[in-house]
């Protein structure tokens, strides 16, 4: 069945009330029945919840074949916890048919690819998938299609009971003996633990894995002891160098800077750019650099930013410290400046994934967002964005908060070079739709700016400010004139991943790629 972004969704997936994507805000006003976990009572006072090992913790939580384990990705590419838990479950306890439901997965989790190939892991639910895992899933080796959700779509699915978490594993930079966790104060600090919060509240069992045990009570706790069954102390939960880089530096690449400057120009041309405006930007080169140019416009017009959200890093913390933004609300930190600031700098707060981006709650932060600046692997002439599959059709990306912030914000700006190497970023038809075009407003490239015709108000703003813009078709034509028109990818029938829209409908599927042999 064709959905609102023109993608053909196999009927076989449309069971148990699953629908195809119908357009923005389709589910508005509908009711959901929240699922509740089945949790164990610990009525008798416990001195400590510390257990010997992960195996002990798994046993205590009744781990068995076919279960779903959840993880969060604050330790990013430095994470050791996913691999160590899966090793204990599969190699020590001999469990099978497991599903990993993670907020995101990256190249740190390459070893899981082996468990997929061996058939021990049969399901993956995640926002991001990269490295070897992306390759084996793309090659059709996972028994069930991977389910890809945005950061807001995941807490929605958990709360609606579409994902039932048997055991949630919380990677905690610090914990006390009963499981009050924080993202700071230890040796593998990650700052915000926002993505772990919903998991901990909706899982049947919660196991905290830490490498730094601190005195009770570890306050203010991000994940609270009232939700925790067991605490396991390990040597190391991750590689601090890969968890948070020293400092996210603003790009010096002239191409990035040129695009960033145009992003700031576009923002400053709209009526939403006024005192107290709200803002989110990614950490990619041109997105982050937009901060720099935006600050100039803020100074010029003598206005301040009201609040900023998202993954947070140094440049935003700087603005907070300089008093140019009043509040920063943080679901994840990308560098040490962010990590060291959360709950320390006045105005820097932590939030959960649901509070950040869930479309089914009563009002997430993204819904109040004025501007978001995002990157893209590909964007097509319908303004549909792909941030999941490479243009060769292999899974190597993450929707993350992209679809959520795009849908919630008043102005969503995509910033990307027109081509990367020989790949046309602006193209006829994206490989996979991860953010629907009706949520995307402006495209800024190194070859020009295009505004979505759905936003005549923004076209008028740019015209008034004398900012030149062109049609997205002409940008696509320019890209193809530079790199040549790519051949269509060839696919097999087998679906290897299902791309859920944030509201739970099906936005797209990824099929198994047929590699070209000459």
């Amino acid at each position: 069945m064709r959905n609102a972004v023109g993608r053909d969704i196999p009927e076989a997936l449309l069971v148990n009330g699953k629908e195809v994507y119908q357009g923005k805000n389709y589910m508005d006003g509908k009711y959901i029945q929240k699922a509740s976990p089945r949790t164990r009572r610990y009525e008798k006072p416990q001195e400590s919840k510390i257990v010997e090992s992960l195996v002990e913790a798994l046993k205590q939580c009744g781990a068995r074949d076919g279960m779903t384990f959840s993880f969060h990705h604050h330790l990013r590419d430095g994470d050791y916890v996913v691999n160590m838990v899966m090793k204990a479950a599969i190699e020590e306890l001999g469990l099978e048919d497991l599903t990993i439901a993670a907020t995101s997965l990256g190249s740190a989790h390459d070893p899981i690819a082996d468990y997929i190939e061996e058939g021990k892991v049969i399901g993956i639910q995640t926002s991001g998938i990269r490295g070897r895992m992306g390759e084996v899933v793309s090659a059709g080796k996972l028994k069930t299609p991977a389910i890809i959700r945005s950061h807001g779509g995941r807490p929605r699915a958990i709360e609606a009971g579409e994902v039932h978490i048997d055991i949630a594993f919380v990677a905690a930079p610090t914990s006390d003996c009963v499981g009050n966790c924080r993202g700071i104060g230890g040796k593998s600090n990650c700052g915000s633990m926002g993505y772990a919060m919903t998991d901990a509240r909706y899982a049947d069992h919660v196991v905290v894995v830490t490498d730094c045990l601190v005195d009770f009570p570890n306050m203010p706790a991000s994940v609270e002891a009232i939700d925790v069954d067991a605490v396991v102390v390990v040597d190391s939960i991750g590689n601090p160098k890969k968890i948070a880089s020293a400092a996210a530096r603003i790009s010096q690449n002239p191409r990035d800077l040129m695009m960033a400057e145009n992003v700031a120009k576009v923002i400053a041309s709209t009526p939403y750019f006024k005192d107290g405006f709200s803002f989110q930007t990614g950490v990619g080169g041109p997105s982050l650099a937009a901060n720099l140019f935006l600050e100039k416009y803020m100074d010029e017009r003598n206005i301040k930013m009201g609040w900023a959200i998202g993954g947070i890093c140094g440049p935003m913390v700087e603005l907070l410290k300089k008093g140019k933004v009043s509040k920063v609300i943080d679901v994840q930190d990308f560098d040490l400046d962010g990590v060291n600031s959360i709950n320390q700098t006045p105005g820097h707060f932590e939030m959960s994934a649901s509070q950040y981006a869930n479309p089914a709650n009563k009002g997430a932060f993204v819904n109040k967002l004025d501007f978001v600046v995002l990157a893209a692997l590909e964007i097509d002439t319908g303004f549909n964005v792909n941030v999941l599959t490479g243009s060769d059709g292999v899974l190597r990306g993450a929707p993350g908060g992209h679809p959520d912030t795009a849908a919630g914000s008043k102005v969503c700006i995509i910033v990307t070079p027109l081509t990367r190497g020989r790949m046309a970023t602006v193209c006829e038809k994206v490989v996979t739709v991860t953010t629907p075009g009706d949520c995307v407003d402006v495209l800024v490239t190194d070859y020009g700016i295009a505004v979505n015709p759905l936003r005549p108000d923004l076209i008028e703003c740019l015209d008034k400010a004398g900012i030149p813009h062109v049609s997205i078709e002409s940008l696509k034509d320019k890209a193809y004139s530079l790199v040549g028109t790519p051949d269509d990818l060839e696919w097999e029938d087998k679906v290897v991943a299902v791309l859920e829209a944030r509201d739970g409908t099906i936005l797209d599927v990824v099929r198994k790629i047929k590699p070209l042999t000459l």
Partner: protein
Amino acid sequence: MIRRPKPERFRLRRTMMFMNAQKPGLIKDAYIYGCDSIMLDLEDAVAENQKDSARFSLYHALTTIDYGSTEVIVRINGLDTPHWQEDIRVCVAGGADGIRIAKCESAKDVHTVEAAVEAAEKEFGVEVGRTLLMAALESPKGILNAYEICSASDRMFGVAISGGDFRKCMQTTFQPDGVDMLAARGQMLLAARAAGIQCFDTVFTDLDNEEGFKAEVLQNKAMGFDGKSLINPKQIRLVHEVFAPTEKEVKQAEAIVRAYKEQSAAGVGVFTVNGKMIDIAFIPGAERTLRLAKACGMYEGDLV
């Protein structure tokens, strides 16, 4: 195949950005940053054993990539190398707008290059005289012979000083106040103006020293340079800002050119604009200001 329009000998050349002709990722779209001229480099940027390879890259870049209205100049290898003749052949065959003669020391050097260019134009069926020339002065001898170099050929549109080599010859190093090259810059400017061609200053290599760069560009403008060679796109904006005329200058130039057009139609040679005596000698300067203003987006009229 891209056929570039016939080059203009005199045009706006505030910024000339150097790019290694051997790097496909760099040269494919260097024009997007808005510099006036791109300088594709076959000389210092290209290793000795890659000179051949760089020419193949250059040829296909020149004939495939649409550089639009950005001028495309090629810096060829010195006349004391085995490379320059083939460099000239590829430049002419590919349709480069101009050639920058490295380490030029005399009018004879210009004539040597000119003869090779003309031969190449005939060989490849290119209109004779199409390919422009500029000279880089890199030695005291080059500076002392600046006037004969500047006036050596009708193809010459400009002259530039190359600071790195020149400072070495003079046993000095970069000085923030420019005193190291003050005499050379002055001599070169005199020669260029006397010969009626353009004059460009050397590159500023310390990319992190923004204050130093700004000071040098301001001095360039004050001394009367037409533009500057650059090594990084991020330097373009400042040069264009500094070289932009003031609003007052644009208004005055517009008034002068307009009055001149009206008065000369009526047969009047000398007239006043805003109380100032104006004759034909003011016109080229006023027109240059308007062209500059147009390039900077400050003037949209049709007087130039």
